[in-house]
């Protein structure tokens, strides 16, 4: 667990799109990890004053019509999220949130239907590649995490040159452990960040792995990193 009971709680906005379904789990996990997390309907034009981080949760926004995330990226709140990210604000996209961020071109690559064409729902071993940024600071380089996935469209794709570039720049923060790729993602990519490192998307669901009752608490390492980074950035705002 990160932080102490009396540490200030950074404000984290969890955006709710029509069809989001992991927003409450994300809110609960972030709250338990020390954030002041609130849910925000996607038609809001602005983020609440004092927002230190934004989370786009998992789900099936707009029924996954056309392409996953393709319609949600035009929700009114997304202009504010894009501006927030451009100013260096912390933005995390989980599963459908990741898909929305790639459609919005805030993150590289795109998420395609799983190579197997089957929905996958199981715990997946992951390897943490980099730990210097705000989303994986609580992890050790090379650490193995177990976090569940549940998606039909998680096959991350980018051209080979893009993958090499991202790898060289340390933007591939999370990979599926060797031989454990559940969806056919290129280069076993499970999570990738933008160039400056303040926007991160991943297919696994850290919010479903924050309590021993759920089989793993490894998700708390990622969300706890985010809460701590958000606390620092909100302290800088004051």
């Amino acid at each position, binding site marked *: 667990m990160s932080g102490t009971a009396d540490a200030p709680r950074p404000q984290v906005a969890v955006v709710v799109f029509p069809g989001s379904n992991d927003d409450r789990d994300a809110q609960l996990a972030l709250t338990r990890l020390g954030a002041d997390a609130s849910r925000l309907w996607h038609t809001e034009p602005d983020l609440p004053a004092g927002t230190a981080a934004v989370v786009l949760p998992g789900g099936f926004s707009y029924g996954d019509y056309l392409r996953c995330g393709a319609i949600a990226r035009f929700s009114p709140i997304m202009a504010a999220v894009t501006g927030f990210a451009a100013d260096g604000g912390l933005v995390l996209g989980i599963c459908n949130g990741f898909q929305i961020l790639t459609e919005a071109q805030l993150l590289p690559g*795109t998420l395609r239907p799983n190579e197997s064409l089957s929905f996958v729902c199981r715990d997946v071993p992951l390897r943490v590649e980099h730990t210097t940024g705000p989303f994986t600071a609580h992890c050790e380089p090379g650490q193995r995490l177990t976090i569940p996935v549940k998606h039909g469209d998680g096959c991350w794709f980018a051209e080979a040159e893009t993958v090499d570039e991202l790898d060289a720049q340390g933007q591939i923060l999370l990979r599926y452990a060797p031989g454990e790729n559940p969806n056919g993602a290129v280069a076993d990519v499970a999570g990738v960040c933008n160039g400056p490192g303040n926007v991160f998307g991943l297919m696994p669901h850290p919010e479903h792995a924050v309590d021993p009752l759920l089989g793993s608490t490894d998700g708390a390492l990622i969300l706890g990193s985010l809460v701590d980074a958000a606390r620092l950035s909100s302290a800088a705002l004051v």
Partner: protein
Amino acid sequence: MKAIVLVRPKAGILDPQGQAVESSLRHLGFAVADTRVGRLVELEVEADDAREAHAQVERMCEQLLANPLIESYEIELQASS
């Protein structure tokens, strides 16, 4: 003016859906190869002429209907009946 937009997986992009469809067609006894599955979007577009309509639909493709990373598109215009 009516527009028909054909969105298909770009050449060279693996198309698991096309492969699954192809395998089913083979089970049915058809000798098929290179099966690709795309998407067709039909719409009515308000425009003064075909050129303007085409330009509009092209913008639609770039902004929403196709993902340029993995998909290519073709636009066909038909006079509305």
